[in-house]
């Protein structure tokens, strides 16, 4: 894992010009609040960058600066090689944006919205009409195509909003919490839509509170807290910062946890974490297979009855909590029913997330 070097000067090095999105030392204050405090980011062309961070970390502010809506107080940013402040017009020809709150016209119909925005992207009338129809189909909005969005459900509005930013295949697409409020099926479809665009060469900057979303989509993750990037890496790199694999043991009798912890201490890389309420014990380990067989042998020798045992990788949720001290899905965002982050992680991880903040 690389930790973001805090380049405060705002200089952009020559090699970094290969990046679709580049931010150096961005600062933005709102009165007393510092929303961005030396924010750095580099997203290579054709990749997906996930921006994670607790509520109020500055994710939306960063997206608004990069999409030319907000002028930074300090630092520099380029999108597609153009400065977001001095060449905003050039930048706008190269970006698509889905903001955190749906921004659609409430009075025009869904189709009317897509056609109007299509025209404003300078499609001809017929092309705009055809593209609208395609997007209505793609986003499952044909049933409500001729209804104004003020009569849509929250998820439908969100989908229409996404459809608008998909009208063109922009070189750079900003998605600020694109799937918040969507049901699991539509989230999957949005993910597929993003993958399609990436396959066509679009670079995506995505903010989210759903860690499975970055696990699914992102090539690279930046974790942001209090306006600056505090960690950066691929999902795997970030997970391995928690010390690699974890051994999970669930006992029949919680009273035995203390003894089990003692017995397992020999093979642990660090002190075991004990969760009496779940009758569970988590031990960071180095070698997957040896650790598992060793653990079984040690526990059996001690005469401790094991209900369940397994090795798993740490989840991104754990990484997030460790880095920021925040629970990832706290705050106003909806929590999806199933937040198992790592499909390989094994089931029943609900109680693995620390409630601490």
């Amino acid at each position, binding site marked *: 894992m690389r930790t973001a070097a805090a380049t405060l000067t705002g200089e952009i090095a020559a090699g970094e010009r290969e990046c679709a999105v580049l931010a150096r030392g961005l600062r933005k204050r709102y009165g007393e609040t510092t929303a961005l405090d030396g924010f750095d980011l580099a997203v290579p062309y054709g990749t997906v960058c996930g921006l994670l961070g607790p509520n109020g970390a500055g994710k939306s502010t960063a997206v608004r600066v990069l*999409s*030319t*809506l*907000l*002028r930074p107080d300090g630092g520099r940013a380029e999108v597609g090689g153009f400065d977001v402040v001095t060449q905003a*017009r*050039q930048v*706008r*020809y*190269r*970006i698509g*944006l889905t*903001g955190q*709150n*749906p*921004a*659609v*016209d*409430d*009075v*025009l119909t869904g189709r*009317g919205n897509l056609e*109007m*925005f299509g*025209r*404003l*992207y*300078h*499609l001809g009338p017929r*092309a705009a009409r*055809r*593209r609208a129809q*395609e997007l209505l*189909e*793609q*986003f499952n909005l044909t049933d409500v195509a001729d209804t*104004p969005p003020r009569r849509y459900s929250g998820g439908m509005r969100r989908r229409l909003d996404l459809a*608008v930013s998909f*009208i*063109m*295949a*922009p*070189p750079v697409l900003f998605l600020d919490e694109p799937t918040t409020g969507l049901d699991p099926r539509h989230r999957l*479809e949005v993910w*597929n*839509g993003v993958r*399609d665009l990436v396959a*066509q*060469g679009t670079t995506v900057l995505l903010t989210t509170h759903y860690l499975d979303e970055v696990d699914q989509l992102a090539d690279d993750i930046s974790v942001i807290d209090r306006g600056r990037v505090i960690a950066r890496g691929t999902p795997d790199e970030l997970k391995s910062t928690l010390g690699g694999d974890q051994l999970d043991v669930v006992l029949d009798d919680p009273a035995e946890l203390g003894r089990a912890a003692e017995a397992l201490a020999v093979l642990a890389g660090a002190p075991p974490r004990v969760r009496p309420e779940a009758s569970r014990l988590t031990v960071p380990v180095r070698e997957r297979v040896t650790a598992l067989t060793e653990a079984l042998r040690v526990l059996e020798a001690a005469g401790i009855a094991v209900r369940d045992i397994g090795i798993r990788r740490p989840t991104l949720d754990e990484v997030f909590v460790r880095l920021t001290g925040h629970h990832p899905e706290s705050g106003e965002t909806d929590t999806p029913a199933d937040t198992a982050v790592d499909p390989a992680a094994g089931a029943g991880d609900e109680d693995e997330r620390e409630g601490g903040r």
Partner: protein
Amino acid sequence: MTRAHDPHGDLVSGGSGVGVLAPTRPPETPLARLRWAVVDGWTVTRRDLTHWIRSPEEVLGGLTFPVVSVLLFGYVLGSAMVVPGGGDYREFLMPGLFGMTMVFGMVITASAVVTDTSRGVTDRFRSMPMAPSAVVAGRSVADMIRAALDLTALLGCGLLVGWRAHGGVAAFLAAVGLLLLLRFALIWVGIYVGLLLRTPESATTLMTLVLPFAMIANTFVAPELMPSWLGVVAEVNPMSATVAATRELFGNPGLGGGSWLARNALLMAVVWPVALVAVFFPLSVRRFRDMSR
């Protein structure tokens, strides 16, 4: 997402063969830029007009007050009203109501602007490759079209109650032009005020501020019949200049007293709107830019 067929078909630009609906390029010549500004502005105008077509009750609601005023002031209170220099009160009243309707239009502009900013639509526009001027240009054209329709309806209403334009075609057109000029100036006041507001709901309270502005003028009563200090305020009111000038052009009674402002109503009916634009156009542009602060 079902993508059974090639989603972009012949929309593929540049023949890259990747199936990308590539964004357009920025216009390079000033002429191309102007062309897009016009096309984009018209797209926005059509959208604004669609809003009114979709909610005719709002448009009719906007006309209710002037029409009710015709009945209330023209008939219920009319017999008690005095026109200085004599003349029919309803002939005196109608130009006042024309002017008042133009002034109320300011609220229409402001509430449309604040609705767009608070719903994020303005931000969406700002992030798009459209001509930056199109948002306000489209707004102005739509508002002017609506003002012309409102005015037509009220002129018809006036004809029904016995109001007439006595001054000939040129004078008639000049009067209509002055009314629309006032409305045009107030678009910029409306845009500025709309950008200051935070919620669409606050736009409705604007009406209570605009109402006295429309009343403390020569709309219903000649200023020389008011207490002297109020009469001065009423005469200085930009709306009074337009109303007095249209009375003159329509050949309606109640031309103001001997004050300089009253004698130069035609001049002032041009000076005031130009002054309003000169002040509020730059203010609006600056406020619009400050959205990115």
